[in-house]
């Protein structure tokens, strides 16, 4: 928009400052400069945050950590009776826990619950950079592993073998002991799924690269995204919970409808 207006504004300037479009042109130029400057500024910050080793980012992360996390994890992330040590958990762990809203934790319980995210992407990245600077650990996965363009059949098989016993074959989630549970994997970003596999958050085991290779992890994500993006060919999936949901449905809605119809059929006409 602004680019189209600019040449016209120049022409208008040639005609004189008192031209009716002069003020419009002035505003347009002003917006162009401010917008451009702002864009340049935010790009430079984006570059800065992705550069995890930047000393400035680490320092920012350290401040955020001291203000929000140190109560439980200790001032130098060494852990306390309230929370585990974060030395060596890596950037991936922080990105998962903070990026899904699980940390900072709302309350102690069987496991940290998902909730609205508390930090901006920039702050999360700073925290991740700080924790990653403490000791080597799993890094945030590269974008080419998260494109959901792998082999979904291989991913489905690996998912059934390694994940379905807790998360259910369709990723609908499942129960664990003592109030713990494996959450549903719908609407979880590819990056977070990958990070969960390499860091093993809450009660989940770690699936390292020796166990499931990065390509296989990409295939698993491909399968999960396939299930998420393609609605069940049979109609509404009833939560993909299996026969319990189906049984409840037939008793309440199926037989309920039938009984209502029997009452209708045998009602005396007046």
């Amino acid at each position, binding site marked *: 928009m602004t680019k189209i207006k600019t040449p016209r504004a120049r022409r208008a300037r040639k005609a004189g400052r008192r031209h009716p479009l002069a003020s419009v042109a002035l505003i347009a130029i002003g917006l162009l400069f401010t917008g451009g400057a702002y864009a340049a500024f935010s790009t430079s910050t984006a570059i800065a945050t992705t550069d995890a080793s930047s000393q400035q980012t680490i320092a920012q992360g350290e401040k955020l950590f001291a203000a929000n996390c140190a109560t439980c994890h200790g001032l130098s992330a060494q852990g306390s009776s309230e929370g585990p040590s974060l030395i060596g958990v890596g950037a991936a762990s922080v990105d998962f826990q903070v990026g899904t809203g699980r940390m900072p934790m709302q309350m102690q319980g069987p496991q940290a619950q998902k909730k609205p995210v508390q930090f901006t992407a920039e702050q999360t990245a700073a925290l991740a950079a700080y924790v990653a600077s403490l000791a080597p650990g799993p890094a945030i996965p590269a974008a080419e592993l998260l494109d959901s363009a792998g082999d979904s*059949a291989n991913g489905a098989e690996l998912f059934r073998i390694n994940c379905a*016993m807790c998360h259910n074959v369709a990723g609908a989630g499942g129960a664990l002991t003592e109030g713990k549970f494996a959450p549903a994997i719908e609407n979880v970003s590819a990056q977070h799924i990958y990070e969960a596999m390499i860091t093993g958050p809450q009660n989940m085991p770690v699936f390292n690269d020796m166990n499931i290779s990065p390509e296989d992890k990409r295939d698993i994500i491909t399968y999960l995204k396939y299930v998420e993006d393609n609605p069940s060919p049979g109609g509404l999936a009833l939560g*993909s919970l299996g026969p319990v949901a189906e049984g409840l449905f*037939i008793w309440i809605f199926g037989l309920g409808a039938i009984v209502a119809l029997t009452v209708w059929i045998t009602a005396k006409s007046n």
Partner: protein
Amino acid sequence: MTTITTRESTEDQAVGVKKSGGFTASAANYIDERTSISGAVKELGRKIFPDHWSFLLGEVALYSFVIILLSGSFLTFFFQASMAEVVYDGSYAPLKGIPMSAAMSSTMDISFDIRGGLLMRQVHHWAALLFVAAIGLHMLRIYFTGAFRKPRELNWVIGFVLFILAMAEGFTGYSLPDDLLSGNGLRIIDGLIKGIPVVGTWVSFLLFGGEFPGTDIVGRLYSLHILLLPAIIVALIAMHLLFVVVHKHTQYPAAGHTNQNVVGYPVLPVYAAKAGGFFFIVFGVVMLIASFFTINPIWNYGPYDPSPVSAGTQPDWYIGFADGAMRLIPTGWEFVWLNHTYSLNILVVLIVVGLFIVTVMIYPFIEAWITGDKREHHVLDRPRNAPTRTAIGAAGVTFYASLWAAASSDIMATHFHLTMEGVIHTLQATTLLGPFLAFFIAKRVCLALQKKDREIVLHGYESGRIVRLPGGEFVEVHQPVDEYERWKLVSYSDFKPLMLRPNAQGKIGATEKVRAGLSRWFFEDRITPVTQPELDHAHGDHPAEITDK
């Protein structure tokens, strides 16, 4: 059409056979002369059926069965009951190139590559769930209204065997696609069988043709599923219906309903039309459900492989109570004796569930033995008028429901944010204590309702109208119950506990003592129906009459 009819009738007249009524009449006559069917039509067409919604539940089961037969026949055209290994190459991307059995692969093809296949699969499966559910509700109606009493005890047994066979049909069908869910189900059955001492392992090897899962089981289950079990079910349904015709239908107590009559509509034309139309309604409901709701998405489960088990693996609802029973057994219930492990966690389930099933099946005979009632009953009991039976039923339902709920313990834990252990312990408690509580509450509710009925018969309804008498006294005017309603309230069978009587040798046996004790327990706090003298007394100067039962 008309011209042909006219010509035929003229030809008939020409050969001297006198006829009227056109084509229908002559066609009917043609059939009758060769089959003598008019006798049956006359008999059945005039048969009277009472009209009540709960009398249609058995019909729902029958119609679901017809839907299952129709959709199942379609599925047999495409299903391959073979465990030969093939590589899937159909339309569903996340299974492409995966080795699986021909059974699974053909079920995938039915679901994705055969026109209407998925709809038929879903119709078949939803109708199966509805079939067993309708049988269950039908049985509850029969039980709580006492419709199983003489002369219908045998029909109760036939119906119950049908229920068991329906579950067997369901389970064999559930296992056919050879997907992960059905394989896990079979693995549990295999474990159950192997838990039986001495013979378990042998029986398992016999069934699966070697070590589980083998390559035989799908073919064997298929023979049972489409040949043997349906044949037995069809034969038993025929007997079941024949008995309904022979015994005539029961009816609810109401004015003019007695053990000697049946009040209702004749089969032809009204009832036949209604029942025929109802088939299409049931079919329509099943079709709608199958069109809009997924059932058993085998594409999610993938082919069976003994290593993975999915979270939320459960059987279809009707097997749920057995699955739940196993989940409720505390851990560590097994012992080793003579170098063999005895799995009480399995044996206790088999024994308890087996006893429960047998008790329900022979309940009519147990009750008849306790009550000593040898009369024929064609008028149903209102549940409140048989408090002990209703209470036993409530206890049984609570027991079954607890086991049933236990099959979804994990789903309850995740969806209501509970701990798995908490859910299991709660259900253990409701399984053991719930039936006693349900028995007590149901019995007290029945007795209270009976007392209320007595009160209404004797004193009528409270009208809320207060009248001040000339002497200053206030009385509430009661509105007497009309005689139609009174019939319903007073016409139920009266019982007394059995008297202990010595036998021919002048002795009272232990069995007789037990029987008398049970009978006392059954009837001890009964409320007797209102008698004529009581009614006369209550009404004083304006006598009301109890009509003969």
